[in-house]
């Protein structure tokens, strides 16, 4: 099972978690999520089916994503992000922005690490 360390001090989401949340902004099924992630990261991130299964189940349990539509019509099980999930993505973007700003400033020499 994938561990989502969302509530530990810094509140950083794993890359897998964030990418899955992004992939289900529109209803998407397991295979579609996998393809979205591979395509959008240019093949840098290729999720294994087992890892994705754990991530989906963990996110459903947290109510950040929810099954969408019914399986009765024979279609593949789809998932979509919830408001709580969107809020987490928003928080993560803010955190990443702060880290990016800090890292850029230090790498460019605009400020030192001890300032």
């Amino acid at each position, binding site marked *: 099972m994938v561990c989502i360390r969302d509530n530990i001090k810094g509140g950083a989401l794993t890359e897998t978690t964030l990418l899955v949340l992004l992939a289900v902004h529109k209803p998407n099924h397991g295979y579609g999520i996998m393809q979205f992630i591979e395509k959008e990261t240019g093949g840098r991130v290729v999720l294994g*089916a087992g890892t994705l299964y754990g991530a989906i189940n963990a996110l459903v349990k947290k109510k950040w994503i929810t099954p969408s539509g019914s399986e009765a019509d024979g279609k593949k099980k789809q998932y979509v992000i919830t408001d709580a999930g969107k809020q987490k993505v928003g928080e993560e973007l803010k955190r990443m922005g702060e880290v990016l700003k800090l890292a850029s400033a230090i790498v460019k020499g605009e400020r030192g690490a001890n300032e």
Partner: protein
Amino acid sequence: MSKTVFRYFFDFLDGQEKWLNSMAERGYKLKNCGKVTYTFDACRPGEYEYAVEFVGDRAYSKAKDYCGYLEEMGFRTWTKNINFNFSYGKARWRPYAKGMGQIATSPGGFNKELLIVEKKKDGAPFELHTDARDRLDAYKAVRRAYFWAVLMMFGLVAMTFIPDVSSLPAAIAWVFRAVIAAAGILFLAPAVKYALLVNRLNSACKTFE
């Protein structure tokens, strides 16, 4: 033409996976498998590839759900045993499992501790677990199963030393102990291998996802 092969793997995960992949490389795709048998059909060499996943730590309903999910993703799956035991109408305690997975029944999750997953080769590596943390959790479950197997074997040997516990003649009792201890040693090798792997992944998790 079908080909049937008899095999039992003490390294049920990587060992079995490697062997299935070597069979596929030689032009044999899995048709079905029994307790110690594998039946193959001929295919183009290297047309398919295999992964073996341990699901014996999950409740039967969860293992079935996972299996259904993999099938939906386009993989072909088979369930496989890690025991020799032929049983029907029994319930077993699986000390290494979590939650309801600790009770395995037959019919049910007993003798279905593994999933063999088949994929048509497409050039991309066939890995079911890609996230460092997820790989760590998967291998931890395997390590736990092996340690319990070793513990059970040596526990069984220790039990034979309890006075008056068995009516076996001393010589036969020593043969029995030797056989059980040998099985324990055979389980110990993969137990150590997966423990080392878990340690490596643990330290990788500190830096990478």
